[in-house]
Structure formats: C-alpha cells, structure tokens
C-alpha cells in the first residue's frame, strides 16, 4: 500500500473545516507558491508528472503552459467538478471531505496561469458537496485567504453528463446548453467567456498543494514511469468492499480488485472489468494484470479515464450491461454532431432488440461497423467514449450476444 496523500484527512470528522486543514499543514503550499514565479510553479508541476485525473490524462503542467505568454486581459481557471462518469465517485469525497485542498490548489494554479478568477463547476445533483465546498470558500474569504486578488465562484450544473467534457462545461458555465465547442480554438487560447481558460479536474488540482510542499520528485516517485503520484480509484460493482481507494498510479487492476476491494462478490468468479469509467473499453478477466495509469491501459486497448473500476462477475449478462450503457449514451448525447446524435440512439435500439430476443444476425456487425465509422468524426470525445463499450462488449463477449439472437 502506498502513501496516502489525497485522502490523508478523510478520517477526521472535521476534515472539511479550515481549522482542520490548517492543523495538517494546509495553505503552507500557497504561502510557498507566492514566493515562486509562475513559470517555476508550472515547471514544478511538469516535473511531478501529474496528469489530468478527470479522464483525458493530459500532462497538467504542459496544459498550463498553453496559456499565451503576455496575454492581456483575464485568464480563468475552471474546475471540473461535474463528476458523472459512471463508476466514478472520487471528486464527491474530495469536495465533501477536503474542500480546502481544492481551494489551495486553485490559488496556486491561478498564480501559475496568471489568472485571478476561478470557477468551480459542481454537478447539479451534488447538493451536499456543493454546500460543503461553498462553506469552505466562504471560510477562505472570511480568513482573508481568498479575496486579495484571487476569487472563486461556485457554480452549479443542472444535469447533463456532457458538461463533464471541458468545452461542454465551458458552454454550460456561460449559461448555455452544454454543447462542446469546436477546437480550434482550444480553451487555453479562447475558453470561458472568450478568455484563455484552463479546465482541470478536482482531484488533479487537489494534488497541487502536496506537490509544492514536498517536491516534484517525491510526487513523481509515487507513481509510474510516465504518471506521477497516487490517485483515487473508485471501485464498485461485484466486489466485496466497494469504495474509493487511494493507490499509486502504478497499482495493478488485480491489486485493486483483490487487495483493496476484497475480491469478487456474487459468484466470486471474475468475468469482466470496466477499468476507467463506463467510457473505457471493458477488459476480460484475463486482462487485469495491467498498471492503472494512462500508459498501462492504453497498452491493452482501453483507458484509465476517471479510474472508475466496475467489476462484473460470471453471473452478469454482458448484453444487459451493454444495454444499460447504450441507454446512457443515447440519453446523454448532446445532439450537436450528427454521427453521435443519430447513432447513439440507433445502437441502443439495436442492442435493446438483441437483449429482448428480437435481434437479427446482422445486428452485431452493424453495431460494430456503425460504431467504428462514427468514431473520430465528432467535435468532442463523448462519442469515442461510447464506442469504447460498444465495440469491446460485442467483440469480447460476442457469443453471449449471439446466444440471444433467434436462429
């Protein structure tokens, strides 16, 4: 078991308070950062090998460095707390149990990117996390931590998975439908309200204070060769101890399932695992000896995504599981791009038909062909995320689907 960084205070009943945060060294990293040049902070983050923990896994320091040098006018930091990837529940814990880590991380990040205003976009259903985090922001203002050149606005979503996509989130923050935006321009050039914007996940920014306090080298060493640090793995489904577990980015999926989450429940026999939230390609039982970092999962044709692990045992019907997900993607497609809008619904209809015993023998090939043809053709990554399950479930568990199709 590796060092606990992000969840170190979770056991304290008052972990969400400023007092508790200060007692455990809170806001010392911010003090340190204030004596550092913005470029030095970015450099430190680059060297820490911190990568985005929301889904895309992009190197964080590199992202920050995309803000145009010498830009006149506002630069915004937007925190993606629109946690919504099925199987993921880590940001909820961070918002409720260590909100000041995010506030402090935001302060440091704003200094690094020369921004004075941060927005925290919290999904609308997270009423309690929103309350707790808003209270923390109020405390920080009252203590004079915020308000001296740095402001944080807490924003609520209203129910739309697509707002977890960074430009969909920006549209939503601007008071519009959560339609992702065309790239270019990228948010770092023209983001929220037309200004350069960095969008980072809650957990990513919560890693920033410890990095500054203890050094990039220390953080990098916690993880794998290409991804520094520990991260919070959400483990659910058919495991004995579902929950959020902090572990090194070099942890294996097998360790997470058996060592952390207590092993497979129900039949006890592993059938399949979603490794990084529902949008990652499902792995079969023989693929779990992979490291749970960006590169490890890429090697097996999946992705670490938001590190939401969903375990399925032998008794799970894979066609039914896929139907749950095809319904989800059809429901959450924002409707902007034709391929996604039209085929998420179509594929759901085909999968449902198969599950209900009304499939036709050509359906499975049609699903695969349509998914492949539409992938890579849309504005945002939502559709490619849907294609992960579409293709992997049908390909890896094809005989289960075929068994449901009348001869």
């Amino acid at each position, binding site marked *: 078991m590796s060092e606990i960084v992000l969840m170190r205070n979770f056991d304290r009943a008052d972990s969400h308070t400023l007092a508790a945060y200060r007692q455990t060294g809170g806001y010392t990293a911010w003090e340190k950062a204030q004596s550092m040049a913005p470029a030095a902070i970015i450099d430190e983050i680059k060297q820490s090998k911190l990568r985005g923990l929301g889904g895309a896994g992009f190197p964080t320091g590199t992202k920050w460095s995309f803000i145009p040098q010498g830009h006149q006018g506002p630069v915004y930091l937007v925190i993606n707390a629109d946690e919504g990837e099925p199987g*993921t529940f880590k940001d*909820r814990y961070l918002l409720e149990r260590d909100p000041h880590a995010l506030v402090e991380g935001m302060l440091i990040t704003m200094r690094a990117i020369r921004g004075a205003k941060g927005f925290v976009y919290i999904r*609308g259903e997270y009423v309690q996390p929103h309350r707790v985090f808003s209270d923390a922001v109020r405390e920080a203002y009252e203590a004079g931590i915020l308000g001296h050149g740095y402001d944080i*606005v807490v924003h609520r979503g*209203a129910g*739309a998975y697509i707002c977890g996509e960074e430009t969909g989130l920006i549209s939503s923050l601007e008071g*519009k*439908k959560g339609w992702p935006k065309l790239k270019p321009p990228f948010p770092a050039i023209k983001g929220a309200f037309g200004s350069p914007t960095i969008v980072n996940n809650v957990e990513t920014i919560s890693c920033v204070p410890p990095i500054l306090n203890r050094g990039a080298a220390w953080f990098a060493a916690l993880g794998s060769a290409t991804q520094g640090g520990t991260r919070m793995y959400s483990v*659910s489904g058919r495991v004995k101890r579902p929950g959020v577990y902090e572990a090194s980015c070099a942890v294996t999926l097998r360790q997470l399932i058996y060592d952390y989450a207590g092993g497979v429940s129900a039949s006890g026999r592993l059938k399949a695992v979603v490794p990084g939230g529902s949008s990652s390609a499902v792995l079969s039982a023989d693929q779990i000896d992979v490291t749970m970092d960006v590169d490890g999962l890429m090697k097996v044709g999946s992705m670490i995504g938001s590190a939401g692990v*969903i375990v399925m045992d032998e008794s799970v019907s894979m066609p039914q599981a896929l139907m749950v997900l095809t319904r989800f993607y059809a429901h959450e497609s924002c409707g902007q791009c034709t391929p996604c809008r039209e085929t998420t619904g179509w594929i759901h209809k085909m999968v449902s038909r198969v599950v209900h015993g009304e499939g036709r023998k050509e359906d499975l090939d049609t699903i695969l062909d349509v998914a492949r043809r539409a992938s890579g053709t849309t504005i945002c990554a939502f559709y490619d995320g849907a294609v992960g399950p579409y293709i992997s479930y049908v390909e890896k568990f094809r005989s289960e689907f075929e068994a449901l199709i009348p001869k």
Partner: protein
Amino acid sequence: MTPTLGAPSSPSPTAVAFSPEQVAEVRRLQSLYPDPRGALLMVLHMAQDTFGYISLETEAYVAGLFNLAPAHVHEVVTFYTMYFQKPKGRHVLGICHNLSCFLAGAPSIIAHAQERLGIDVGETTPDGRITLQSVECLCACEHAPMMQVDDRYEFDLTPDKVDGLLRALP
C-alpha cells in the same frame, strides 16, 4: 452590414416574479460572471425552487432578467434533466439505473418503488406527493443501489429501506 433589428422580444406581462430580495440575488449572481448570462443555470435553479417548476411563463420571465430571447432560455431548460417543465411532486425520487446500480439490483428497486407508489417511472402520485424517476449515474456507486431523494443521497437501498424512506416523506 451590422443590423440591429430590435432587442429580443420581451416577456409578456406575467404573474411569475421574484421578490425584490431575489431580484437582488439574481443581480449579484450575474455580477459574478464576466457575462451575466453565466448565472442562468443558477437563476433557473432559484426559479424552480421558488415556483415549483419552470413553466413557459417562468422561462419568459427569466429571459427578461437576462435580456435573452425566450427561445434561448427554453433551449437551456429542455437540455438539462434537473429542470422540471411540468409540476413535480413535493418530493422527487431519482433511482439510479446505471451500471453499478444495475449490477446491485437497481431494476428490482425501481420495480419495487413503482409498485409501492402505484405509478410508473416519470409519473407523479395522484396526491402530488412523489415524482418517481430513474436516472443516470449519480456517482455514488460504492453504495449501489442508490437514489437521490430531493437534495440528499440515499445509499445501499433494499426494498425495506425504500419502504422506510417512503414512509418518512411528508
């Protein structure tokens, strides 16, 4: 050619209106964003809390507060799942039906709630007490099956627990 053919149509006179304090809150929220429109989602939440749901009249009223065309507010209201366009029950149950909850028996929890309430998903009990929904992932999968009851999450649902929760709702 930069035409200005007139401002967006203003809402018709309406019975829907915020109190002066609420209007002040609207203006405060608008001032937090570089473009006041940023506060639209927050103000729609306020409107729903105040008026129970977001009627077309409410949309037109809010459009007026933002100097937006009502169609653009309607786009937003119809896009997000948390805005109710029709009156809802005094309580809203949203039972998660996504993968982890599905694996933990969400379908039977939903069936149980439907049977107990005598309504289908998407409906409201005739006495206006409860609206039942099945919803996408609420990101509390470690406590599957789970649901949202108004503002709070309820975890590790069983039929018995659902019964108890239903009984406790006024």
